[in-house]
């Protein structure tokens, strides 16, 4: 999977490394923005109120 990704990317090795780094940052941002809050709400609900 990751080997295929490496082959698909164009350019010399350092350009591919930069692109992979940017891709990793984007994936992490998407996780933090959408996936993690959803997972926290769904799997580990928190309630600090009484009677709710």
């Amino acid at each position: 999977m990751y080997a295929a990704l490496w082959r698909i990317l164009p350019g010399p090795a350092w350009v591919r490394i930069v692109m992979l780094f940017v891709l990793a940052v984007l994936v992490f941002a998407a996780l933090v923005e959408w996936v993690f809050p959803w997972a926290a709400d769904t799997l580990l609900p928190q309630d600090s109120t009484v009677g709710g």
Partner: protein
Amino acid sequence: MGVAGELLITAGVVVMLFLGWYIWLGDVVASGEQQQAAEEVQEDLQDRWERGDASTERPVDPGEPVISLPAAEGDVFGALIVPRFGSDWVRSIATGVDLKTVLNSYTVGVGHYPETQMPGEVGNFAVAGHRRTYGAAFGDIDQLRLGDLIYVETVDGWYEYSFRGLEYVWPTGVDVLAPVPAAPGVAPTDRVLTMTSCNPRFSTAERIIAYAVFETWYPRGNGPPAEISGVVLAQR
């Protein structure tokens, strides 16, 4: 290594990232945003007061606090200042304890139980905040010590409460919200502040309750109380 193996390793890394976000990074980000939003609320309260938005009644006895009007559900009407939680710690208070719009919000974090009284009013001013995650507004609630001062800021001024003690109840323990906490039906004579949060951390099994009693109030016209004046004035 096959594709399945790579997927499993990726999933493992994502779970580790999630846990790191859940117990640490998420709270750092959310509490920073809530702090910033609350400081803007404090500026807004001062602006509203200067425009003449405060309650017009002025008590004869300066010790008798002015009671702010209740705000609409979900509206921010004040700020909570707890020096024990940090020298510049402040969070906005909205009406209601709705999870999505108030307690989980990155711009609020503390909710006022709408069926309870307003700050300074005879009875119980009760608020809720998360112990962990979503900024963990009340993350250090168990660090409060006897006599710690807790301030509620509204457009009318600052209401000073003094911390008295902690209590642990089941999630169904709504009696803590009564005008006389734990004594429903009794007519109140004191002004009480009640904070509720979850206990233990990361769990919803119990609730931790902090009680504070009213000490005095500072009309906005006279400026903020000395203990927090540096915090309040620095934001002007």
